[in-house]
């Protein structure tokens, strides 16, 4: 199963009335949506509101989603349109250089909000990042390798198993153990 198929399965559940499946989609994509919005929305304080508007629009439009394109491509278009509407409502022009849906996966808008973000948020973000990198650095090599190949290289379990020369079940276990170790340190940081 690939990402597109899993998203489609969740969408079919939503279309059948399982609202909680939409919560899972929001959890999965909210950071990516916020990241796209940083390209348009200059005030970091407005990003949660505009993100919420994006997902409400997505939910309302889901009955019309037929799965011709990937859910993320569709979500990306709605995000950009909502951001442009937001700029119009603020009497501002959209940025001169636009981004296409094809660029959605590779888009890096990390620099866009830097100058406008809340200093406390930047500090917190840096702290979270440091904790994650430190835990990964302290992991045994086989766990470190598995999580890096998966998250940074986007490799499938099968591909990682071939590189690491181990069964897929072992890859699955290693990646989970790495995440579990990071989550143990991350959870109190996010809850506080």
């Amino acid at each position, binding site marked *: *199963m690939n990402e597109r198929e899993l998203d489609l399965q969740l969408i079919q559940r939503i279309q059948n009335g399982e609202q909680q499946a939409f919560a899972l989609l*929001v959890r999965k994509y909210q950071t990516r949506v916020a990241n796209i919005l940083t390209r348009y929305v200059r005030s970091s304080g407005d990003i*949660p509101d505009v*993100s919420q508007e994006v997902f*409400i629009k997505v939910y309302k439009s889901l009955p019309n989603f037929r799965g011709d394109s990937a859910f993320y491509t569709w979500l990306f278009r709605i995000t950009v349109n909502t951001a442009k509407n937001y700029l119009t409502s603020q009497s501002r022009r959209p940025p001169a250089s636009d981004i296409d849906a094809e660029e959605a996966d590779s888009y890096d808008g990390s620099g866009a909000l830097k100058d406008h973000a809340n200093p406390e948020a930047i500090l917190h*973000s840096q702290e*979270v990042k440091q904790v*994650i990198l430190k835990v990964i650095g302290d992991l045994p090599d086989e766990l470190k390798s598995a999580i890096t190949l998966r998250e940074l290289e986007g490799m499938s379990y099968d591909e990682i198993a071939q590189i690491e020369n181990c069964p897929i079940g072992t890859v699955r276990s290693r990646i989970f153990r790495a995440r579990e170790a990071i*989550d143990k340190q991350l959870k109190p940081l*996010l809850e506080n």
Partner: protein
Amino acid sequence: MKEYSQDLSSLMDNELGDKEVINTILDDAVLQKQFSRYQLIGDVLRDESNGLDLRMDITDSVMAAIANEKQDDYVAPLAAAPEPEKSNVVPFMKRFGQYAIAASVAGVVVVSSLMVNQGSSTDPSVAPVLNTVPFGGAAAPVSLQATPLQSENEIKERNERVEALLKDHQLQLQTQP
């Protein structure tokens, strides 16, 4: 719990699409929050969260907004539609219509009086006077310059006739009980 956490990790990597596992995750708030944190780990490693407030989790607010909207959609058709308030302002066209009717009547009166005047003022030597000639009659103009239309004999006959009528009337009164 640990078993489902491992399934959650596999689900995130699109390596698991088992319906039962998805059902369990959808019903478990703790697993869903764990899913958010696992997702965040990947976002941070890929540098997709730079500058963002990582404490931001809009899931609850989005779901609450959707629930409210659904409730509104359901309630709206049941609620009686409010009657539109009646305006105290007289519509422009209504007032305009009243003026138009009044102006038309005034116009007809002026035009008809002008036409009658034109017909009656045949003698240019006669100064304009108040003309009270009705549309269908032949009354004399009221003016000192106006010439009498009846002769003295006619006036005498008329007075005699009136006197006779008065005498007759007095006789009738006397004979009544």
